[in-house]
């Protein structure tokens, strides 16, 4: 009898699954935690186990069963608005055979959860989801084994349903009573099979996200909303932007302002505290009038991309291939680049800290509570075990923004007022002024096609600063450089392949007989930068997929057909074919100033496959681009939440269009000049696509593939390619603004 048939017999939505051990090891492979952005990750102690079980093999690190049979699941990953808080529960409930409402999730908390490094790199389902799935399968197996001894029967005659283990004769025992006499402090076995795909109830189905109703009705859903008895509000006092400092701040004058309870100073670090926010907001106006100066070397004038291109590099050839082929008959050489970009969280960074009895607790929207704790321990001269960092949601971050810095600011302020919680929030101007930016990047590509219309040769070099300055020590935190204790930032490092930083996705998935791909890592960092969603993939995929279209044009081939001609991976081919078919690629509406563009990549060449097709209409007089349609197809392996996956892909497309078409951080000699939403405009509702559809290619039973960053690159390229189709003009320098389109048309 199949699992489905059994379920039908029992009714009630419960699952009945017999136990069997796998003949060989399971399953899903993990990867480098956080996509290579973190440092100091815990070592693999059980390399045969899947996902983060390799670092934390004990089952009770992941799952505990209460006497009433309810389960608590622990993850070192954080809910950032990407929906993992519900997706991980779906996985656990399925593998445990418990109703969804009887499973709760505890997320990133140094006091309670495993150290899974940074929640980044689209790794949460791959690492944590895989660990939880296999830990849950192990727990369910142990419960059944316990029941088998109790009933005096063989374990493979037992089944589970809705929190009970049942024998064929009808006897049953609840998870709660079985767990009471069972230690889960045992290592996971690699040979416990996960449920068959057909027996799963939640994985692959849409379950409403648990976090959404509270967020929509005013619950205290964010760290910004926390209130605690005796809590003080706080603001930090520093210069207007990264690379500046106040010259002679009059702290006594600030302290005398109404509603300011005290000013905390540690070296050059300063914060003001008070019981209510409004007096602090007014006092910040006084801070804004204080004289300041640039504390770093002056910024060069002109486009800072050219400065990045000119600085000294540490070249690393990441792919060298030299197969004998036909010679090129047509060549294209081009530079593609992007400016500095901003994360631009809608809510400024915020944290709550409480110093009590020589211990520090910090509630933070940091993506890495453990690395933050370690950096704070150095800064505050405390053993790490006396600091607890607990993740609480903030506004979406899209990478390393001010979260860790503001948590440090709050911690320093709280240390001065033991026993009183301190909530410190940055101002909008501080968020824009101080967040580490997404790096400016330059790529230079040269490629040729042979007489048969196949790519014969390909070179790609990418100039970039590091893509992660996430904190691993005190000097990586803004306040760490202000306290006057000689802390220095970690030396900038290139994230190595296969994840890559600036060179993320610089190696195309296409068949290239001759290729040289070089990461031109630029160690010197004139502007503070760090991880922005997708890292180098946004730039590299933009460049590769633009070049592919340029080559298709000289080969007189259809861009989609040209891509398929150079692909061997059947999943890549299926994603592209699915999208081309659903989008109606082969039957474009022929109209002047209207064009379609295509973009494809497999994120990190190891995550989700994603293709994006965009249709635009151009207004030639102004260069304004209307996105008529933006569709995508995605293969993220086994899909846990189809709607959650679509939400991520849709969001990535819209955000990428904003980056690619509208955004650029500008500078004068002293500082960045983007300090609010008028000096750094982003996409608004009047410019979002008129229509969008995301087609999910599900792969039940296959490993999870990270998808949270998969559409950034393909969307950027599809947008550029659509403009090229519509106008005949190829724009290679982001942002692809209306003004640039207009100038390109005027220059024809």
């Amino acid at each position, binding site marked *: 009898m199949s699992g489905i048939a059994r379920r039908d017999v029992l009714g009630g939505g419960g699952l009945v699954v017999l136990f069997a051990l796998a003949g060989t090891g399971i399953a899903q492979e993990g990867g480098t935690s956080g996509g290579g952005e973190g440092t100091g990750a815990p070592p693999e102690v059980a390399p045969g186990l899947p996902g983060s079980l390799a670092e934390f093999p004990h089952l009770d690190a992941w799952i505990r069963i209460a006497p009433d049979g309810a389960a608590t699941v622990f993850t070192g990953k954080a809910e*950032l*608005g*990407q*929906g993992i808080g519900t997706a991980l529960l779906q996985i656990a409930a399925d593998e445990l055979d418990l109703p969804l409402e009887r499973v709760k999730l505890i997320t990133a908390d140094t006091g309670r959860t495993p150290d899974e490094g940074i929640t980044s790199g689209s790794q949460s389902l791959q690492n944590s989801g895989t660990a939880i799935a296999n830990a849950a399968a192990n727990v369910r197996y142990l419960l059944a084994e316990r029941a088998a001894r109790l009933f005096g029967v063989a374990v493979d005659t037992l089944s589970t349903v809705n929190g009970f283990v049942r024998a064929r004769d009808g006897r049953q025992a609840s998870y709660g009573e079985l767990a009471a006499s069972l230690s889960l402090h045992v290592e996971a076995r690699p040979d416990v099979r996960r449920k068959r795909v057909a027996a799963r109830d939640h994985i692959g189905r*849409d379950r*409403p*996200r648990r*976090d*959404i*109703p*509270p*967020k*929509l*009705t*005013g*619950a*205290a*859903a*964010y760290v*910004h*909303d926390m*209130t605690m008895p005796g809590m003080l*509000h706080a603001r930090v006092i520093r210069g207007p932007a990264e690379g500046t400092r106040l010259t002679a701040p009059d702290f006594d004058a600030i302290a005398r302002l109404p509603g300011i309870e005290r000013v905390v100073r540690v070296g050059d670090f300063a914060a003001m505290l008070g019981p*209510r*926010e*409004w007096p602090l*907001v007014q006092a910040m106006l006084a801070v804004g009038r204080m004289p300041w100066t640039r504390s770093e070397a002056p910024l060069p004038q002109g486009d800072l991309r050219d400065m990045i291109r000119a600085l000294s590099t540490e070249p690393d050839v990441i792919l060298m291939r030299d197969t004998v082929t036909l010679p090129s008959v047509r060549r294209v050489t081009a530079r593609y680049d992007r400016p500095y970009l901003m994360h*631009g*969280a*809608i*809510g*400024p960074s915020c944290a709550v800290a409480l110093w009590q009895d020589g211990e520090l607790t910090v509630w933070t929207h940091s993506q890495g509570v453990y690395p933050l704790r370690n950096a704070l321990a150095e800064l505050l001269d405390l053993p790490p075990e006396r600091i607890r960092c607990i993740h609480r*949601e*903030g*506004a*979406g971050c899209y990478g390393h923004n001010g979260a860790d810095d503001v948590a440090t600011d709050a911690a320093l302020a709280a240390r001065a007022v033991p026993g009183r919680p301190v909530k410190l929030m940055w*101002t*909008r101007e501080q968020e824009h002024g101080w967040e580490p930016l997404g790096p400016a990047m330059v790529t230079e590509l040269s490629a040729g096609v042979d007489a048969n219309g196949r790519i014969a040769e390909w070179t790609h070099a990418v100039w970039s600063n590091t893509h992660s300055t996430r904190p691993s020590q005190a000097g990586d935190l803004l306040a760490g450089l202000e306290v006057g204790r000689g802390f220095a930032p970690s030396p900038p490092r290139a994230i190595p392949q296969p994840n890559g930083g600036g060179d993320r996705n610089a190696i195309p998935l296409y068949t290239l007989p001759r290729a040289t791909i070089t990461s031109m890592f630029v160690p010197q960092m004139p502007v503070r930068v760090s991880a922005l969603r997708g890292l180098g993939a946004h730039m590299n995929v933009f460049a590769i997929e633009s070049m592919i279209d340029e080559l298709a044009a000289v080969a007189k081939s259809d861009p989609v057909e040209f891509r398929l001609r150079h692909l061997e991976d059947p999943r890549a081919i299926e994603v592209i074919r699915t999208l081309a078919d659903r989008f109606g690629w082969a039957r474009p509406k022929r109209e002047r100033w209207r064009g379609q563009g295509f973009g494809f990549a497999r994120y990190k060449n190891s995550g989700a496959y994603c293709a994006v097709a965009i249709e635009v209409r151009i207004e030639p007089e102004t260069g304004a681009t209307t996105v008529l349609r933006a569709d995508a197809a995605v293969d993220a392996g086994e899909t846990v939440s189809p*709607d*959650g996956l679509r*939400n*991520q892909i*849709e*969001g*990535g497309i*819209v*955000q*990428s269009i904003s980056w690619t078409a509208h955004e650029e951080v500008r500078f004068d000699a002293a500082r960045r000049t983007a300090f*609010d*939403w*008028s000096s750094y405009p*982003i*996409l608004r*509702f*009047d410019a*979002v*696509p*008129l*229509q*969008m559809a995301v087609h999910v290619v599900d792969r039940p039973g296959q490993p999870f593939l990270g998808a949270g960053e998969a559409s950034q690159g393909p969307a950027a390229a599809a947008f550029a390619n659509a403009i090229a189709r519509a106008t005949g003009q190829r724009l290679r320098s982001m942002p692809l603004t209306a003004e640039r389109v207009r100038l390109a048309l005027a220059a024809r």
Partner: protein
Amino acid sequence: MIELTINGTRRRIEGDPAEPLLYVLRDNLRLHAAKFGCGLGQCGSCTVLVDGKPVQSCITPMAALAGREVMTVEGLGSANSPGSVQQAFIDEQAAQCGYCIPGMIARAEALLRADPRPSEAAMRAAMRPSLCRCGTHMRILRAVRRAAVAMGGGIVDPAEPVS
């Protein structure tokens, strides 16, 4: 002292008449739906209804609110009993981080009260003052279309069908 109505309750608020409504809502009344985003009236995270119209509470001083009716998203419904617009946002799972969404809901509520059958372009124009950084725009628009139908109206020329 300012007298006004907040979510149907008469309130007397002591304090600085120049203080923006947002801080009174969040700090005095523990109403957390309206969010601080910029303090400059640029992003819409703090949007609430004042006499049925969308207002950015971060730049609206209490002095301007004497005798007026303020409605925050808490006044539209609760997690157990959401209002029509909230329910539409839940049905469409129209949130990622969700930080901007209470402001979006307030703005959509104001739009549909004023015009139960707006055009697609009018809907997008009405939502324009509110920023979303997660790129949830398509879902937010779907939720507004759905809410319009649920409230007895509809979008005259929807670019995308209500799912």
